[in-house]
Every structure is written in C-alpha cells, then in structure tokens.
C-alpha cells in the first residue's frame, strides 16, 4: 500500500461531480430532424481530492473525453452539478456559470490533449503558444510575458531559445511538453489529461509521466488522467474510476481496483491487458454480446447482456453507485458477493541489466 505516495494529498475535495449528463442530438433523414440522443455521459458521480490523480478508464466511446470536456465547460452539460473549489471564490457550480463568470474560474482548470500533432496551432511559435493563455487572461505582457514563457519552457525541459521555433520542428514528446507548459501557464489547480502519453513511444512516455509527477509534487496539482494503457494508469493514479457506456461502474484506490476489483466489467478490462511477455500469450475471453449503443442502452444494469454473473434483477434494475466500504464505490447488485480476479503482478520477465561502459580502444581501427 502506498497511500502516502504524495505529500500534498489531502482529504479536501477539489471537484465533485453529481449526476452529470451530456447528451448529443442525433440528426437524421432529409430534414436533419433530431431523432434521438447519444447519451455520451449519463448521470455520473465522482470526486477528486486536492493534489491527487484520479485515473479514468473504460471502453472506447464510453464518454471519457466528453466527461473531461464537460467538466471544463468546453461542452455544456445537459444536466448535473460540477462543484469546483476555486481558490479565489470558493465552491462554485460550474454548470450554472455564465460565460463571463466562467472566465474567472477558467485559469484554474486546464486540459492537455491526446494528440501532440494536431493540438498545437502550427502557425504560432512555441513562445506564442505557451504565452497565449497569459495574454488572453491579461496576466502578463512584454518582458514579463517573455520571462514567464521562458520559465515555463525550462520547467518542462525545453530550452527557452526554442521560443521562436514552430511546432513542426519538434518531436511528439517535445510537443507534448509544449502542451504541458501551456497548460501550466496560469498556475492551474486542476488539469484534465486526455490521453497525454498515448501517442508517445515508451521512453518518451516515461519522461512525460515523470514530468507530470514532478510538477504535481511541486505545484500541488490535481489531475484527472484519462488513458487506455492500464499499466500507465496504475503507475500514476491514486484512485481510478471505471466508466461503462456513460456511467461510472467502479471507483476505488488504485491498489483495491487492480488487485481486488468488485465490478465484473473491471475484471474483464483487467484480464485484457496485453502482458509484455511473449511466453505468456493470452487471448482474453471475448465479452459476449454487442457493445451497447449509447443512443439506446440496455435496460437495468447496462452491462447485463455481456456479464457472466448477471441474474434476473440485473435486467430490470439499474444498480446505483454505492460505497461498499473504504471508499470503494461499485455499481453492481452483487458487489459484496462476487469473487473477482484482479491482475497478477508482472515480476517474472527479467529486467535485463544494461551493459557497462567498456575500456577505451587505444587507436580507432577500422571495423573488421
């Protein structure tokens, strides 16, 4: 157990989401009339404590990005409350704020996007990209602005001389760092990281993850970390929430969720992690049945058509998300009763030692 992982963590809640919904209209036919709704986010509840990282995982299309964007009001919610503890004005419900009021809260919440290639404006220099939020908020100008940008770039490991270059001149990892510098510009409290390392190779991914952790410690940042790679999520998160078709089905400490899952969907997810060991090849059991359609979800528990533990009640009654003890939240009728399989620790593949530095070769001889 490593609950004391981060010093800045407290039990104070920074963000609490209650009953959040985001429905997109479906237009069809010749007249493009609204014929239904995609219930991308359909009544979710969760909270994030100050200084912690909450991982958010789930099937592709289950509503993770929509959740992240709605929290920041980049999308307007259909229903629900988004209570944010703003350092200046105290607790506010972001869902109810007008555009003008939002402008005051915005600096405290930022987002880092998945795609380091398309998320930076190619026409702006790196300096302009990082400085833009400062200018918009009129937080700095002139020399003070340049100094702050230089400081931010330094913070993410990019040499400030690069300020005048354009994004295309940087690699994926460097662009992701530029995106992080921009997100940090206004000293935010909360950063939504939407798959920040998915597009990066493992070594650069490790650098960016280490950077995010260092920054968190230094500035007491709080992260909502959306990702698919469950090993990355395990590495970085204090707690993890699992989403299924617009609904949170389980939320617990990382340790509990990975090693003692209580929801059948979480179990299926964990079983599908591809293990970096060619001697342990597994073809995970396919979830039976179709992926549910968020425009027309199944009755009762949304997972019931694919759940191997489903019983009659599951078809009719939707289980609420409830705390079964120790802040382990589960939305399953049988959470207490089921014995589910967690992950096994991957300690069998050898960690190969790096070769050591060799003695110098006296005179360089041509290769044989």
């Amino acid at each position, binding site marked *: 157990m490593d609950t004391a992982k981060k010093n800045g963590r407290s039990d104070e809640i920074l963000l609490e989401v209650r009953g959040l919904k985001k429905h997109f209209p479906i237009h069809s036919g010749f007249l493009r009339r609204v014929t239904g709704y995609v219930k991308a986010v359909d009544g979710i509840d969760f909270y994030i404590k100050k200084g912690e990282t909450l991982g958010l995982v789930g099937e592709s299309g289950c509503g993770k990005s929509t959740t992240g964007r709605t929290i920041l009001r980049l999308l307007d919610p259909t229903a629900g409350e988004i209570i944010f503890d703003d350092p200046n004005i105290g607790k506010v419900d972001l869902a109810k704020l007008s555009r003008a009021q939002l402008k005051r809260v915005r600096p405290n919440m930022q987002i880092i996007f998945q795609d380091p290639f398309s998320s930076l404006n190619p026409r702006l220099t790196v300096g302009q990209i990082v400085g833009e939020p400062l200018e918009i908020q009129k937080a700095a100008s002139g020399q003070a602005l340049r100094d702050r940008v230089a400081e931010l770039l330094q913070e993410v490991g990019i040499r400030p001389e690069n300020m005048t270059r354009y994004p295309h001149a940087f690699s994926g990892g460097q662009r992701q760092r530029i995106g992080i510098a921009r997100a940090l510009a206004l000293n935010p409290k909360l950063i939504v990281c939407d798959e920040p390392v998915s597009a990066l190779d493992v070594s650069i991914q490790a650098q960016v993850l280490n950077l995010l952790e260092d920054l968190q410690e230094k500035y007491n940042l709080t992260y909502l970390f959306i990702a698919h790679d469950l090993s990355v999520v395990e590495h970085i998160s204090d707690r993890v929430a699992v989403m299924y078709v617009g609904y949170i089905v389980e939320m617990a400490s990382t340790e509990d969720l990975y090693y003692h899952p209580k929801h059948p969907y979480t179990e299926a997810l964990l079983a599908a992690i591809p293990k970096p060991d060619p001697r342990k090849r597994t073809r995970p059991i396919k979830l039976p049945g179709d992926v549910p359609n968020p425009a027309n979800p199944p009755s009762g528990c949304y997972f019931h058509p694919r759940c191997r533990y489903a019983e009659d009640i599951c078809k009719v009654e939707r289980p609420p998300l409830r705390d079964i003890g120790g802040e382990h939240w589960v939305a399953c009728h049988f959470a207490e009763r089921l014995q589910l399989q967690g*992950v096994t620790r*991957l300690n069998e593949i050898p960690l190969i030692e790096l070769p050591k530095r060799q003695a110098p070769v006296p005179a360089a001889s041509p290769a044989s």
Partner: protein
Amino acid sequence: MTNAAATGTERTNIQIVSEDDVVRVEDLRLSFYTSLGVVRALNGVSFNIPRGKVLGVVGESGCGKSQTGLAIMQLTFGRIEEGRILFREFNTSEVIDITKLEKNGPEMRRIRGNHISMIFQEPMTSLNPCYTVGHQIEEAILLHQTRDKAEARRRTVDILRKVGMPNPERIADSYPHQLSGGMRQRAMIAMALSCNPTLLIADEPTTALDVTTEAQILDLMRDLQHEIGTSIMFITHNMGVVAQMCDEVAVMYLGRVIERAAVDDIFYDPKHPYTISLLRSIPRLGIARGQKLESIKGTVPDPYSTVPGCPFHPRCPAAIPGLCDTVMPEEIFIAGSQTHTVRCHLYT
C-alpha cells in the same frame, strides 16, 4: 526470388533469405529535401516478412517507422535514394520491385487497393471530414471489390460491426468529428481490412483503443493472418502488444534497424543497449509503483545532422570511446544464431 539474392552481395546488410517472403526491404534509403536542409530519414533499412507472419517494428519517435511503411505503399513525400522493396502477391511467383513502379501508375494503384493496405497513424488526417465514415468505406469497397452498391453498403456495416462498433448503422452515417478517438481509429481499420490484403501495414493501430477493444482488433488481425495468410507489419510502441502479437521484431533507431530477432529473444535476450533501455522503460504492473520510471537519457539528435560512428553513442551507457564515436557498427548475427542480428560493437 533468386534475382534478389544475386545482387545482395554488394550490400552491407544481412539478408535473412526465405523463399516464403511476401515483402523484402533491402537497404532502403530515403531523404527529405527541405528548405532547412536534407533529412536522412532512412539510412539503409532491411527486413523481410514471411507469409502469414507478424513483424513488430518498434523504436523511438522519429526513427522512421512510418516512413518505412509509407515507402512500401509509395505514399511517402520523401525521395527513395537507394534500395529495393520486393513484393510478392498471393499465389504468384512474380516478384515486383515497388520502388520501380510509378507512384500513381495503374500498377501501384492496383497493389495499394488490393494487395497492400495500411492503417495510418493519424486517423483524423486520413479520414475526410466532409463525408460520412460509411460513405468512405463504401467508396473503397466499390473501387476494388464489387460494383454493387447495396452489397458495398452491406459489407460496410458488416466490417464496422466486426471492429466492435456499437450500432454500426449509426456509425456509418456519422461524420468523423461525431465519433470518439477510438471509433475513428476503428473506422480506419475497417477500411484497411475490407480488402483482405496480402500485406497489412498497421501503423500504431490501437493507440486510441481500450484494452478490450484492442484485444478484439488484434483477434481480427490474427483471423486475417490465419485464414487468408496475410502478413502484417505491425508498428507500435506498446511492448505488451508486441509480446502478444508479433512473431519477429525489428528495433529501429535513427533510420536503421539496429536489432532483429524472434519475439522471445527480444524480450528475454535483447542485445542492443537501446533495446534493453527501451524494455526497461515500460511501466510494469504492480512493480515499483510511485517510483520514477526509467527513461533513456538525452534525446534523438535533430534530423538535419548526422552523428559519426554508432548513432546511439551519445546516449549509450556502454559506448566504447575511440570506437563507438567513430566507426559505424555493421549488422551482424549474434554468435550461434541464424535469426538474431544486431548493430553494436559490443558483439563484434
């Protein structure tokens, strides 16, 4: 295939010769001529993929993985300076050198649509935002598979279902921006799989997918591999996927293949210091939580310059002064092996 081996003598790279190869890339060199200078993106890439096998291609961002794939498709904007790309379709003995074909000539277009297909790394740049996803897949099917519109529609919905889309009819009628990241990626995959290719080039095909959907896509590819005998060039940075999916692995660094071996050897007996560092930087479940991940120190040198000696030497913990910084290591077999090659002075 004999003519391929005959001219192989003047090349520095080892050819692992197999009668069964579907594609064989030999000493491929590719450059970009830009206003800022010349980028030598590929500096002699060689590998082969046997029929029905999966070759994993891994390596740091910018090392040339995508450009290698694009070169095979003749879709790169760079100039192929040297080298050959030999390709053999299903059920023929004829070997075609793709580099000799005209980029947009009828022969290349025929190969691209029917025999080699590619899942591109950036779905948003390869899906047209102005057309529905279904329309784009149907077009591809109508171009190469059938002329019957209703049949094309039916196949489109069918392949969308196979890649795990909920309500494939809705997805077919959606525009790319109405789909989640992973749905766009699956639309791309559906398009690439619709033609049952001899060779599938999958460039980071599952980066935007959750693990259950990923498992489903990998299964779909294995089916193609087993039922049709498709060979796959699988570019990825997910070492878990490499371990689960690939038969052989080529590790690239700065436009060269620096280690090639069976997947088991790459994980259990890696030789090149870069490969070892790469394996050490993956987060492992349940191990060292809360500790810093290892990463390779330094960064890839900028692409306009060339590094003397072994290109990895400025970052290599085992570099031999006086040798590694002056002499480029050749690709050699590891002692006692016929399949495991490495480019590193530690093994000469």
